């Protein structure tokens, strides 16, 4: 286990060194503060629009941070040929994948906590914010969602030749699931066969990331989802992450470490 922790520690340190997080955080903070400084008919207690805009920026930023961090891990080790001494430690390929996954996920978690803390300070300093229980559940589910996305990006890194292709495709796929995943069944109903069956198959196969998106409930001050349901989606997220990591491992153990 300590080998996995050591590998993940290196990935987390990478987050400090890279500029992505700082740029995205400053951008999010600036836009949120700019929006917060606007005056709407003398009412300074309005928080809905700030929460909505800030949450959208947080989701986009964390998608970018988690995917770009995870997608670069294995290809950069192979490209720099550092993978050979790393695996000679000895570290198994499974441990390497787990270390990279946990490191990328925890790096995204640190960024996520900073973003949500900033947002909490802004909204609760202005007036009546969302329900705290919904906010906490939103953070929790976002965290589980990041695990699935990170696992997806790591999985993509052993299939795609370049990290850029992996980052682009994973970003498109996750954004598509988040925006239309919920409506694929409605879309399937309107299509003739065989498209209907194909869309239904996609609908049942994809990880339903939209379940983890509680932005509407937070912004519109709704109560949280039942906690048992949050537990079920946590389990669902764990299973999907495990599936992606297993696929990664199966592929990675048969792949030559250095490109010819």
């Amino acid at each position, binding site marked *: 286990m300590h080998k996995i922790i050591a590998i993940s520690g290196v990935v987390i340190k990478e987050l400090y060194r890279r500029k992505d997080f700082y740029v995205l955080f400053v951008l999010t903070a600036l836009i949120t503060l700019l929006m917060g400084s*606007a005056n*709407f*008919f*003398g*009412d300074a*207690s*309005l928080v*809905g*629009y700030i929460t909505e805009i800030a949450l959208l920026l947080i989701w986009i930023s964390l998608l970018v941070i988690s995917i770009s961090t995870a997608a670069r891990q294995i290809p950069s080790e192979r490209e720099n040929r550092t993978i050979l001494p790393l695996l000679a430690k000895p570290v198994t390929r499974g441990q390497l994948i787990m270390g990279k996954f946990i490191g990328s996920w925890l790096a995204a978690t640190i960024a996520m906590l900073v973003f949500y803390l900033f947002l909490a300070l802004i909204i609760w300093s202005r007036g009546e914010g969302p329900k705290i229980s919904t906010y906490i559940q939103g953070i929790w*589910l976002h965290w589980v969602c990041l695990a699935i996305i990170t696992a997806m990006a790591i999985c993509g890194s052993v299939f795609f030749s370049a990290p850029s292709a992996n980052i682009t495709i994973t970003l498109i796929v996750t954004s598509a699931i988040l925006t*239309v995943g*919920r*409506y694929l*069944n*409605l*879309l399937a*109903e309107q299509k003739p066969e065989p498209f209907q069956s194909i869309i239904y198959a996609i*609908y*049942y196969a994809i990880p*339903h990331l*939209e*379940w*983890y*998106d*509680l932005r*509407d*409930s937070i*912004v*519109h*001050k*709704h109560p949280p*989802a*039942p906690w048992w*349901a949050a537990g*079920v*989606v946590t389990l669902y997220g764990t299973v999907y992450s495990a599936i992606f990591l297993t696929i990664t491992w199966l592929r990675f153990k048969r792949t030559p470490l250095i490109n010819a």
Partner: protein
Amino acid sequence: MHNPRSIILLIILGICIEFTIATALDPFIQQISPRKATSVDLIHVLFGNARELLANHLIKKADVYFHAGYYPSIFHEAAQARTRNHLHSEEYDEHAHEKEMSFLSKPKDIIDRFGRYFYPTEHRHLHGHETAEILPWLKFAASINPQNFESYVITAFWLRRELHKPDQAEAFLREGLKANPNNPTLLYELARLRWEEYADSLKATNLLHYVLNSLRPKIQQKPNPEQIEIFHRAAILLAHIYEQQRDFKSAVSILQQTLELNTAPKPEVIQQKIEELNQHEVGPPTTQTCK
């Protein structure tokens, strides 16, 4: 030639040439297609015609907020041809609105059923101070496309009805009138505000007469549903004000105009009201009002 310095110098030279050509060509372009005064503002330059779409989207966003996040997506049939009367009028068809908003039928499968725990699934409207949450989106919409008068009407309605800020509502309507001079809908809303909030019958009647006089020839030439509706509403309000002032003759004359121009959705109700007002002219006054 391949050193970075020469490349930077080349880029700077290119920018200088482009700037010089632009300044030389601009007077000719101005002569061919003169720019309107409004096109100089940053939003117009940035968004162009897309600002109309964006403003409409922001008004829709205000509607989403008004329903506390419970709103049909583009994949739901209810998203097609939705009316926004519930956003700026007390007199909307509640039954039709409920029907529009019952877009979530029974869950189609286990994923659909389980997913409903994680987003709003209950139809409700914001009330009281909560409604202030819709205002930022409307103000954004008005800033992006000042020609969309709907954002001014909706904002003014909520400012005075739920937030009790008639002065701000009036100021915002006047801002809308600056961007849309003589717009009959905005003038009607202003008249309504002056009458309902300040009982200022003089300004209200003047504005309403202006609305009726400006719309009458348009309706006679080429009837348009929106103009017909605003003409009818203005006429009803004006008749109501005259009735309150016990000027029954003027009230009858105004209502007769709606019958002559065929703008009343229910002419028999107007006819009944005219008969009632005619009786007042000869009989004792009552406190019944025109609805």
